[in-house]
């Protein structure tokens, strides 16, 4: 892949748009994860929305800044942590004496409240965290492929 000179320089309008929309994308995605059990939405969808904000960062500032701002190592670890949390929360049902993924400690609030779902709520959070990290890592990977090779060569020379 070869780009013309100057095409890697970011457009001011795109940069300003990314600045404006990044916090909204993050807040919207985190809201969908938080209220996944009492509203339309859920862990998967909210996680994907949060991860897509990495793409906004890439559009505004390029691959170098995005890869510096987001630690791919932390994302890789976070995905495994989310999956493990889900399995541990699911195994809670077996330790109580019922089946896998049974909803335990569910009488903890009025119906429709944020944590009224009991274990379901925390499982939804675990899945949301896992999808956030996984899709974010995937997007970073794709950005690395899409990024112009001139950046990498410069880094190698330095």
């Amino acid at each position, binding site marked *: 892949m070869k780009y013309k000179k100057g095409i890697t320089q970011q457009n001011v309008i795109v940069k300003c748009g990314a600045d404006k929309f990044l916090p909204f994308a993050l807040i919207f995605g985190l809201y969908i994860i938080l209220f996944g059990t009492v509203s339309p939405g859920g862990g998967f969808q909210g996680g994907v929305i949060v991860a897509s904000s990495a793409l906004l960062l890439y559009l505004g500032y390029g691959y170098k800044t995005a890869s510096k701002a987001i630690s791919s190592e932390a994302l890789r670890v976070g995905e495994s942590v989310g999956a493990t949390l889900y399995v541990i929360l699911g195994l809670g049902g077996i330790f109580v004496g019922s089946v896998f993924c049974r909803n335990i400690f569910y009488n903890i609030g009025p*119906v429709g409240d944020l944590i009224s*779902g009991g274990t379901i709520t925390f499982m939804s959070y675990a899945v949301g965290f896992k999808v956030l990290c996984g899709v974010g890592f*995937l997007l970073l990977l*794709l950005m690395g492929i899409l990024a112009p090779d001139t950046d990498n060569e410069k880094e190698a020379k330095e």
Partner: protein
Amino acid sequence: MKTKTRRILALICVLMLLAAGLYALVWAKINLPPTYDGSKVNMNEVVDPNVEDLNGADGAAAIIVQKNLDEAYAANDVASVVFDFRGYDTLGESFILLTAIAGSFVILAISHREAGKEEEKDEV
């Protein structure tokens, strides 16, 4: 010769596993009591048409919501189905995502490295 004997041994092992599995299936079918057999359930006891309004717009939906609240105490039926009643399904989906990301990571890393090598060759 060696590979042939190995293959025959592997085939025998697979057949033995298959036979053991079939025996376990038949044994379970004959000896274990059924966990749920719908024959003795009276639907009028589960959902009483005299008490609950089945003809209204929200008839069946209201019953589903009420039963779900009694069972799982979650306001969102879909969330309780996805994370409670079908928890294995969600677990498998999330592991599909994990596997897909690992596979794409491998493929993209290899193609990226090969592209870099080709460019180096061209430059030379």
